């Protein structure tokens, strides 16, 4: 396949909003190769044997055990999936990397956090930005698990505003090393790491600079006590203090002042991987919850037979299915984009950076959507367990606590909501995504007379796809008008940005789910996908609700008089069902299948 052909078939980042995607062009979990399935199965086996079986030790804040298990993961090759073969890794593609991130995350947030901190932000800055010597020196040790890594960006006064850190790096008189002094907070893996990626400011530079620092207590590095956290109990989290820590000049990452870029790009990757890392956690919660509901007898019947419980199970399963659909769609886009870049002559390093950066909008969307799904799912899982769910003896309590961090780390969901819309607007301004044309068309459509023809919705998802196309118009209408009104000042209207972002997120997730299901129905038969079809429909129904609410909020916040009236009418028109789905029946159908399978069986 020529590069050009690939390029034409793959949407660029953010383009999903203005271009139609065919179902055959999305990658789904059902498209995994035999090899990838084996990798998934090995990861699941590892989790069952080495993590889930020792769940109590993880809950008991056994940090040393986390480190030991990380090293075992290294022996199995799980820490080097994304690392190029020449540096001791497997050199697998982005989908495989996501797959391992997904299935390693099921048993406890403690391990998935430690795993993510090491393989993502602990290793990737070196594989992506390190020079040859740095990669040869450090990456093989990180890929094998001989060394564990951590990432020191956040400071007491620099959280979401990461570039405002006060840690200083001062060049020695002989020009041979930098002396780093400062305080870092919330550092995952701090308690057992061998290597730290540290961001510090040289002189009064506008941007921070990245450094590779070996963890040596004799070199002015002191660790604070373990933080007492709500969840992820055996993920080691400490403050790290640097007091004139000497770092050879050759251990500077990339160039002076490039640190913020490194930090942000590492986070882009971290975001989509975090989405993946929320998926198996959900499957496991569903499996436990449905098993409990099948066995727990009240009023002389298993509680699964109650509609109130069925509704929960159905929504939990649907969320998980939706998260899978979006995550793997974007993962494959990234993988293909990297391949295109490599074919164009970019180094793998450069290609990977640009490939992920291209889909930074989708990465943010997924991070927000799936981290909120896992919280919802674990909360409902706990509710199904009733009083037992509140007990630390049952698995729901820790799942509930662990899930909460997802909305906070790798950039809070608020930051990511702002970023998703902000980046899209910037892309439009740069001409990378044509939002203006479609937004103008929507404007004209609003002024015109709507068609009263009865559409033909007889084919599978015909109405749903038509609706998704209209939901995209809601975003174009709201964001288009808001950009016209506020221009670059839009970012200051945060509540409006949040509302627009919520619309964007729902559109991407709903479309991904419908396309995945349509693809599978086409090749495996509609009958085999009956439950998945119900989930795609239920999710779209929920998405329409969110979009209606947020669209209305946004429109009323900045439009007045006739403009407001026309846009609200447009909102109504764009979110209208011809045939309202019977969501009670959909939920019952989904829950009955999950109950009969005694677990989530759609992956």
């Amino acid at each position, binding site marked *: 396949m020529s590069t050009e052909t690939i390029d034409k078939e793959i949407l660029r980042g953010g383009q999903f909003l203005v271009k139609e995607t065919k179902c055959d062009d999305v990658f789904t979990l059902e498209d995994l190769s*035999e*090899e990838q*399935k*084996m*990798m998934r*199965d*090995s990861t699941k*086996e*590892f989790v069952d*044997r080495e993590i889930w079986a020792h769940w109590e030790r993880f809950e008991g804040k056994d940090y040393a055990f986390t480190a030991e298990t990380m090293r075992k993961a290294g*022996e*199995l*090759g*799980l820490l*080097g*999936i994304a690392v190029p073969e020449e540096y001791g890794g*497997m050199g*697998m593609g982005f989908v495989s990397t996501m797959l391992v991130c997904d299935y390693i995350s099921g048993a406890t947030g403690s391990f998935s956090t430690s795993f993510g901190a090491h393989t993502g932000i602990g290793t990737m800055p070196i594989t992506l930005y390190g020079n040859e010597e740095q990669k040869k020196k450090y990456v093989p040790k990180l890929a094998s698990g001989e060394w564990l890594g951590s990432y020191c960006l956040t400071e007491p006064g620099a959280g979401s505003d990461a570039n405002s850190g006060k840690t200083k790096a001062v060049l020695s008189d002989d020009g041979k090393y930098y002396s780093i002094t400062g305080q870092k907070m919330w550092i995952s893996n701090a308690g057992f790491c061998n290597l730290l990626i540290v961001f510090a400011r040289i002189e009064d530079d506008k941007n921070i600079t990245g450094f590779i620092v070996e963890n040596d207590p004799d070199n002015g590095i002191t660790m604070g006590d373990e933080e007492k956290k709500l969840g992820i109990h055996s993920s080691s989290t400490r403050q790290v203090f640097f007091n004139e820590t000497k770092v050879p000049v050759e251990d500077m990452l990339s160039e002076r002042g490039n640190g913020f870029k490194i930090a942000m790009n590492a986070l882009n990757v971290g975001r989509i991987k975090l989405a993946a890392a929320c998926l198996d956690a959900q499957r496991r919660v569903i499996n436990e919850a449905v098993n409990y509901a099948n066995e727990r007898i009240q009023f002389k019947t298993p509680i699964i037979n109650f509609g109130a419980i069925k509704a929960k199970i159905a929504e939990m399963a649907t969320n998980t299915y939706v998260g899978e659909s979006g995550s793997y769609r974007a993962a494959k886009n990234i993988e293909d984009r990297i391949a295109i870049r490599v074919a164009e002559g970019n180094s793998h390093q450069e290609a990977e950076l640009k490939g992920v950066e291209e889909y930074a909008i989708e990465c943010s969307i997924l991070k927000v959507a799936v981290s909120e799904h896992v919280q919802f799912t674990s909360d409902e899982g706990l509710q199904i367990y009733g009083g037992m769910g509140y007990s630390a003896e049952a698995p729901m309590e820790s799942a509930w606590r662990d899930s909460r961090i997802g909305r906070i780390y790798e950039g809070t969901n608020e930051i990511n909501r702002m970023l998703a819309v902000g980046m899209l607007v910037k892309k439009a301004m740069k001409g990378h995504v044509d939002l203006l044309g479609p937004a103008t068309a929507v404007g004209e459509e609003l002024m015109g007379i709507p068609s009263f023809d009865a559409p033909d919705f007889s084919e599978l998802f015909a109405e749903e796809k038509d609706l998704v196309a209209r939901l995209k118009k809601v975003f174009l209408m709201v964001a288009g008008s808001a950009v016209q009104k506020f221009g670059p000042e839009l970012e200051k209207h945060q509540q409006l940005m949040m509302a627009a972002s919520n619309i964007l997120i729902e559109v991407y997730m709903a479309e991904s789910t419908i396309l995945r299901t349509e693809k599978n129905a086409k090749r495996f038969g509609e009958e085999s996908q009956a439950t998945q079809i119900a989930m795609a429909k239920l999710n779209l129904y929920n998405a329409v609700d969110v979009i209606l609410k947020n669209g209305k909020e946004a429109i009323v916040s900045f439009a007045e008089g006739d403009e407001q009236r026309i846009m609200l009418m447009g909102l109504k028109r764009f979110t209208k069902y011809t045939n309202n789905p019977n969501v009670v029946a959909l939920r019952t159908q989904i829950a009955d299948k999950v109950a009969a399978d005694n677990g989530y*069986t759609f992956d």
Partner: protein
Amino acid sequence: MKILVCISNVPDTTSKINFTDGDTKFDTNGVQFVINPNDEFGLTRAMWFKEKQGATVHVANVGGPTTEPTIRKALAIGADEAIRVNAEPTDGFFVAQQLAEVVKNGGYDLVIAGRESIDYNGGMVPGILATLLDMNFVNTCISLEVDGNNATAMREIDGGKEKISTSLPLVIGGQKGLVEESDLRIPNMRGIMMARKKALNVIEPVDAAKATQDAKFEKPAAKGAVKLVDNVDDLINLLHNEAKAI
């Protein structure tokens, strides 16, 4: 030493079992397949012989193309080569005849089969195989050492263990004890990637008779309602008069 490990492709132990075609066929719909656990113990022991004594390990399976993921897993665990006899494993006699052909052509010193597969639990293959090949045979084998041409095996017997000294060529009906569950290997990522490059030779079956026919499958009857009794006298009364068990 050249070892052949015979691998059955069986439903995962947590699978829901259903039958089709008037209860004469197993319904494979939605069923996950795995390496038969008794075979996996054998494979893991074979890997030990490979690593400690330089043995060559091949695996063989009688089955259709759908069994290949299971065979690839064995390769990913570390087997050097695989053979798939392209035929449905209709019964133990048929399978043993196919495997006997593989052993004859491959010149194996040691054949390790599971003592039974956990799907139909026939337990026939290793015994028939040894007979067809006229090899020494140790069934229900729970430990195996090989020194040159001599083999020492431990066999599980009623209420105890039997230690057997024998010689190669040898057929083993293996089970847990050859290695423990904690010794079983998870295919590592490099193994999985290498498995792709290893030979998986598909051969056509030889003419062989099938000795049995599945007339019908039945699931165990569902458990009836439980009756709770308050005291021992009532229990004895019920067991004696109602259940007529005592």
